[in-house]
């Protein structure tokens, strides 16, 4: 019977390049097959059976959507009839086209995979560990130093950092988003306004979104003003205002949006033309101030080429197979001596997950924006224990970030660096840059926590480390931070 089953298995899988253990299939066939998005280790939300992927905190995205829909709705309802009559019907048509384009690009940015790098398989992680240990000559200190690999790209030395969560050496320009808990290729920033990270795969949509939104905002602003002016010639200023109060609201919203959105578009146009990411620009990675010979190795030197590459280059497919089915575990190699035996079958992972759940649940969900935690030594254990689990999406996986005084500092820093002045809406920049800054602070400055590699009882150990840091006082300040974040948002 066993042979018969394996024969059947053989016909079913044909010559597949994926290795599978025939022995486990009798069990697998009875349980319903789950899709990979259901056990995705990052902190993302999935909708429509894995087709849509967003960050965990999507409140601000709905705000963006509401603002755009309401403003445009008011424009089409109250201003367009007048304008179509008095001037030309092309105005509502153009407005409609712009609106649809804005909406399309917004949804595309928010719902697509930004270029998440899937985490290393246990075998890969073990192989890398072995290589690193070999290089370090077996010096297994209590806190092993942060790992970096240097590579020369176009004559410029670039450091590749090791990501402790994903267990990979990050490709150049990739960064780990702490909000989503994923490494993202060509990471630009995490944008709460679109409710997603902006990375390699959705940067062009993001840019098109902010560009078209700038045009739309200016368009609406200009034509609402025109409407009021024309109306006031006929009826008088106050009467005109009284007749279409919606126009006043539109003017206010557009006036405040224009500064930040147009500024943001200008900033990103500059970034695209110089082939830099927001991350790199803020850090000044390729700034000549760092050194005479410092230059951007990715830039082709030509503005036009850079723009074409960023906007019209090939769109790589998603590396995380969200809608694929989870297959039987690949045959594992003999467990290596540094004890990565915990990466066994999914069942043991789930039991680990169950064990970690009570401890994880006591941490509140992470505030969206402002907190950056340079002391990531404390947050890393959270990551370590989280990577063990399979079905993480149902848990309140807050990454407990102890509050620091630095967020306000870096916030100011970012504002100083930006050419935009004035309005509270400008906080989009510092907020985004904050998150970007945060990633750069993460693995380099902080050594890995104890027990990361020598995983005898990592759970117990890292959890005790974790709980000793996260006392109730820090929980309160977490809440404080989230409130602070919301207050800043509400000042918009």
């Amino acid at each position, binding site marked *: 019977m066993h042979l018969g089953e*394996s024969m059947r298995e*053989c016909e079913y899988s044909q*010559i*597949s*390049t*994926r*290795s*599978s253990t*025939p022995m486990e299939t009798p069990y697998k066939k009875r349980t319903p097959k789950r899709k990979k998005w259901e056990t995705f280790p990052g902190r993302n939300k999935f909708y429509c059976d894995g087709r849509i992927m967003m960050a965990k905190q999507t409140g601000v995205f709905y705000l963006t959507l509401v603002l755009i829909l309401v403003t445009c709705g008011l424009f089409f309802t109250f201003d367009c009839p007048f304008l179509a009559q008095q001037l030309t019907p092309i105005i509502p048509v153009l407005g409609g086209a712009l609106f*649809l*384009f804005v909406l*399309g*690009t917004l949804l*595309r940015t928010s719902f697509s995979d930004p270029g998440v*790098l*899937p985490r*290393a*398989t246990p*075998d*890969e992680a073990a*192989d890398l560990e072995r290589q690193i240990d070999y290089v370090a000559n077996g010096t297994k200190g209590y806190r092993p130093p942060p790992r970096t690999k240097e*590579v*020369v*790209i*176009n004559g410029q030395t*670039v450091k*590749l950092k090791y990501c402790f969560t994903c267990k*990979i*050496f990050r*490709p*150049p*320009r990739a960064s780990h988003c702490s909000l989503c808990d994923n490494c993202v*290729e*060509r990471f630009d920033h995490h944008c709460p306004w679109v409710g997603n990270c902006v990375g390699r795969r959705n940067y*062009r*949509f993001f840019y*098109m979104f902010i560009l078209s939104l700038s045009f739309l905002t200016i368009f609406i602003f200009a034509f609402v003003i025109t409407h009021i002016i024309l109306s006031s010639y006929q009826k008088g200023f106050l009467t005109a205002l009284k007749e279409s109060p919606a126009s006043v609201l539109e003017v206010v919203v557009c006036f405040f949006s224009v500064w930040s959105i147009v500024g943001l578009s200008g900033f990103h146009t500059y970034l695209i033309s110089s082939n830099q990411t927001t991350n790199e620009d803020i850090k000044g990675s390729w700034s000549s101030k760092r050194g005479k010979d410092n230059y951007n*190795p*990715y830039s082709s030197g030509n503005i036009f080429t850079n723009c*074409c*590459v960023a*906007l*019209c*280059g*090939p*769109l*790589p*497919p998603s*590396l*995380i*197979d969200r809608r694929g089915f989870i297959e039987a575990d690949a*045959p*594992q*190699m003999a467990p290596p001596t540094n004890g990565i035996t915990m990466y066994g079958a999914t069942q043991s992972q789930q039991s680990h997950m169950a064990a970690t759940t009570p401890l994880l649940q006591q941490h509140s969900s992470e505030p969206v924006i402002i907190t950056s935690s340079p002391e990531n030594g404390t947050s890393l254990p959270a990551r370590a224990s989280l990577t063990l689990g399979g079905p993480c999406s149902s848990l309140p996986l807050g990454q407990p970030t102890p509050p620091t005084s630095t967020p306000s500092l870096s916030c100011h820093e970012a504002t100083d660096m930006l050419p935009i002045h004035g309005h509270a809406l400008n906080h989009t920049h510092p907020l985004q840059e904050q998150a970007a800054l945060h990633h750069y602070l993460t693995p380099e400055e902080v050594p890995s926590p104890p027990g990361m590699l020598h995983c005898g009882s990592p759970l117990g150990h890292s959890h005790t480390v974790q709980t000793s840091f996260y006392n109730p006082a820090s929980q309160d300040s977490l809440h404080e931070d989230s409130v602070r974040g919301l207050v800043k948002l509400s000042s918009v």
Partner: protein
Amino acid sequence: MATEFHNLQDMQHTASLVTKVFIQRDYSEGTVCRFQTKFPAELDNRIERALLEQTVKTLNSYYVEAEKVGGQSYLEGCLACATAYIVFLCMETRYEKVLKKISGYIQEQNEKIYAPRGLLLTDPIERGMRVLEISVFEDRGSSGSSPSSSMSSCSTAR
């Protein structure tokens, strides 16, 4: 020690996985997808250098083709932008087409070259384009078990 397998199915049923060798990405040319052509020492007595190098070079050239910024990609990009990127819902991008070619190529290489030597290449896309994974198999029968079991495993291999 020549482990003979006639096809991948034979290998998966009669062989046990010994180790996995990973060929890492080569970032010396930027973020373009490229794998190191350095020959891993663990495969020294399993496969000829030239064969593996040829495979890796061909894969690299496929990836270069996929990521090439040229006339076709511009057209695709502009068309997509003009349709607010809705066209991607119905059309397959050039990158995806090349990835399919790569899949086919890897399968062919596995059947012709690697399986007969007890090796198996895994498509990098399944490993998030981080590594080119080569699984090294060994015939269960030849790992020092009793003669009768090795006989039976040989017969199933046939």
